[in-house]
């Protein structure tokens, strides 16, 4: 059974049910999926607020790289919402940028005491490039219009001096 039952939560996110119990003898696929959906709905309290969308084949589901960005498209199938995926990527870049900035704090303290003017200038330029990176990344992401391109995107990080 490769069919999946799709539910949409009130916040728009999608939940995908994988049937496990085998079909009854002579049971049609639609009757089987309806039975599994009903049993799951009755057993999972948090599904009560969800709306069931058309079932999909597992092969039609997008890559899980942007799992939190899955939304129904115009055909009510499951697709990656590109603006949400851009926002997720940008948040990931900001988080990594913050880690790199924090890591350079110790270098700054050391160079403030012992560094040459050139070393201080190089480190300041590096830290400024890190601060500016989300702006340039945002511009890059705006130019990408499909989830495959977003999935392949990797920012160019400034080289640490």
């Amino acid at each position, binding site marked *: 059974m490769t069919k999946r039952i799709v539910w949409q939560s009130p916040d728009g996110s999608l*939940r995908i*049910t*994988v049937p*496990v*119990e085998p079909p009854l003898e002579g049971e049609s696929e639609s009757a089987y999926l309806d039975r*599994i959906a009903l049993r799951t709905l009755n057993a999972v309290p948090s599904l009560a607020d969800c709306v069931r969308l058309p079932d999909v084949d597992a092969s039609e589901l997008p890559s899980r790289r942007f*799992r*939190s960005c899955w939304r129904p498209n115009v055909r009510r199938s499951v697709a990656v919402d590109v603006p949400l995926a851009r926002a997720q990527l940008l948040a990931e870049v900001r988080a990594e940028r913050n880690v790199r900035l924090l890591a350079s704090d110790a270098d700054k303290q050391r160079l403030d005491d012992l560094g040459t003017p050139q070393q201080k200038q190089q480190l300041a330029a590096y830290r400024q490039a890190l601060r500016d990176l989300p702006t340039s990344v945002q511009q890059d992401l705006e130019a990408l219009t499909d989830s495959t391109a977003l999935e392949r995107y990797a920012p160019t990080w400034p080289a640490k001096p």
Partner: protein
Amino acid sequence: MGSFAIHRGAAAASAASDTVAGLIEIAVQSEMEAATDTTRAVAPGRVQYHPGVAKSWITFNGTGTIAVTESHNITSITDDGTGDYTVTIATDHSTATYCVLVGSTQVTTPTFSTHTVCDTQAAGSYTVFCRNEGNTAEDMPAVYGATFGDQA
């Protein structure tokens, strides 16, 4: 010389014991749940009523196309998002206070400091949250769940 079984209520010529061959009754659900009787036999279809036996269990791949590897007494699993899953049990527990054991295996590096918890449970379902070393939700290639307790 072996023991043999008769249906409950039938006349027993002589009862079987640990050392003597004879007639032996089949334990019913309540006797399995009480788990104290040492003179009745267990039938395969009633083993699950014993409190020491797992009432449901599952192992599944939580990455890529979510897929169940093996299971018992499970209706479905629901992919709720990255690292978040809900398991639906086929035959409910009698209450929502049963014991749930969950775990997962991470194969990508680093292979330590991951944790997997059951966040909520109802009589017929429970949720599994998988988190990595940074406490961020992450799909795991092998996720496990088992439940123990009284069945409805």
